[in-house]
């Protein structure tokens, strides 16, 4: 893994100049590496990690287990990418086990997600069944612990 990518994955918000400082590389080299990561579709985007408990806009999130029938050419790929294209779908994975696709969907309220499942998803030809689970509360979001902020006040500002 490149040092630039490693640094990005550590998760601190850093601009190119700061990354250059930290890694001891010229800024041009950082830029070139970022360009390469994007061009090779290793780095897909820069979405921030929001706290679902605090985020301004109310959203409803659901995890949907989907069973689909595989096709002679391409197995699950055609149907999976067709489902993945819906705006309501945030992530979509092929799974081993009792169902085939795990779909993370989002909507502004319960009705919107329910409509998506019943009218869009379930009606795709080849979708055999769906089981929808609504998320109630987040405890950890992409590595960030929620609801238990660290109390650092007891740590002395200077210690031997």
């Amino acid at each position, binding site marked *: 893994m490149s040092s630039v990518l490693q640094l990005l994955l550590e998760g601190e918000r*850093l601009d190119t100049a700061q990354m250059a*400082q930290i890694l001891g590389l010229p800024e041009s080299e950082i830029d070139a590496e970022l360009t390469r990561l994007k061009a090779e579709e290793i780095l897909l985007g820069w979405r921030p990690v929001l706290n679902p408990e605090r985020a301004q806009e109310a959203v409803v999130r659901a995890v949907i287990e989907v069973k689909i029938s595989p096709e002679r050419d391409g197995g699950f790929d055609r149907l999976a990418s067709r489902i993945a294209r819906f705006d309501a779908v945030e992530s979509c994975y092929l799974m081993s086990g009792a169902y085939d696709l795990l779909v993370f969907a989002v909507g502004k309220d319960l009705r919107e997600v329910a409509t998506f499942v019943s009218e869009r998803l379930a009606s795709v030809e080849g979708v055999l069944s769906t089981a929808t689970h609504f998320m109630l509360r987040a405890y950890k979001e992409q590595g960030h612990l929620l609801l238990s902020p660290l109390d650092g006040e007891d740590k002395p*500002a200077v210690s031997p």
Partner: protein
Amino acid sequence: MSDNGQHFVADHVAGLPRSGIRDFFAIVAAMPQAISLGIGEPDFVTPWHIREAAIFALEKGKTSYTDNLGLIRLRREISTYVENNFGIGYHPETDVLVAVGVSEALDIALRAVLNPGDKVLYHEPCYVSYSPSIVLAHAQPIAVGTSAEDQFGIDPERVEAAWEPGCKVLMLNFPTNPTGGVTERAKLERLAKFAIEKDLLVISDEIYSELTFEGEHTSIASLPGMRERTIFLHGFSKAYAMTGFRIGYACGPQPLIEAMMKVHQYSMLCAPILSQEAAIEALKNGVPAVTKMKDAYHKRRDLIVRRFNEAGLDCHSPKGSFYAFPSIQSTGLDSMSFCNGLLDQEEVAVVPGTAFGPSGAGFVRASFSTSYERILEATDRIERYMNSIRT
């Protein structure tokens, strides 16, 4: 008498110098907005699997005393760990003592071996407790300076020159707090030879050994003829980010551990059982977390050393620990004035080198156990401060 009890204080305690930086600490504590590079502990929280082991032990009702030497399960893990990582064999039944941090282990080691008036050689700048611990054991500290030219490793010639009749103990701490200095094997071999020749006991505090960035850490206890004259001290605070657990250990020949055990038994009884349970988990499964933290310190070290040098502070690259120890001699200021000025003008706290002994004069200690963002901001401010001094 109207001295409010002062006359009850023992002479050797009253005679201990008041740490010159206590007032400085108080000022920093009152400035929550300041960026502190003065914190002598990891910025990481103890890895969760270790905390979870302590919680589980509490749930199971592990709230009792333990054997004075510590849980035998822990001593077995320590024995294996020290054998595998330092190449020294210690019997878990007789040669290992679990203490309340290396600080306690150091204190009881000194109290167990020193008679009043004995002399102890130690290198300086060093951890703040070394000289006072020797004095509290009614012995006489003899400081051996280390210098930036040697990257704060110890020069055996200076130890030999400092030796005088009555010297009984040589204390070592590599990698060193506050300098990050290490001492390579060849010099340790020469020191070992000298220790044998002069019949010195070596007390070696190797608490930062896992945080060695370059080269391989060598323990003096592993050198030929040294096991029987070395007390090896180690603990969990730094590598495993377990400072608040207060847990460390001593390994050594059975008669010395037995003597230390007496002091420990009558003062501390045993280390807290929950911390001992956490330590077992740390030794069994802690390697990936230690490696991850060490990699983070390594990158931060490279960054802070580069930024200090760019800012005009001559800074060697510490080979271990999470401290940089740049020289401030180019400013013409003494350590305390530099630190006070930096805190006043730029609200950045670093610790004056003199806090770690007179030979720390002309240096400051900056901990890089903090985020990139804070290191970048702090070093930008230090650069601005340097420019203001120059003009």
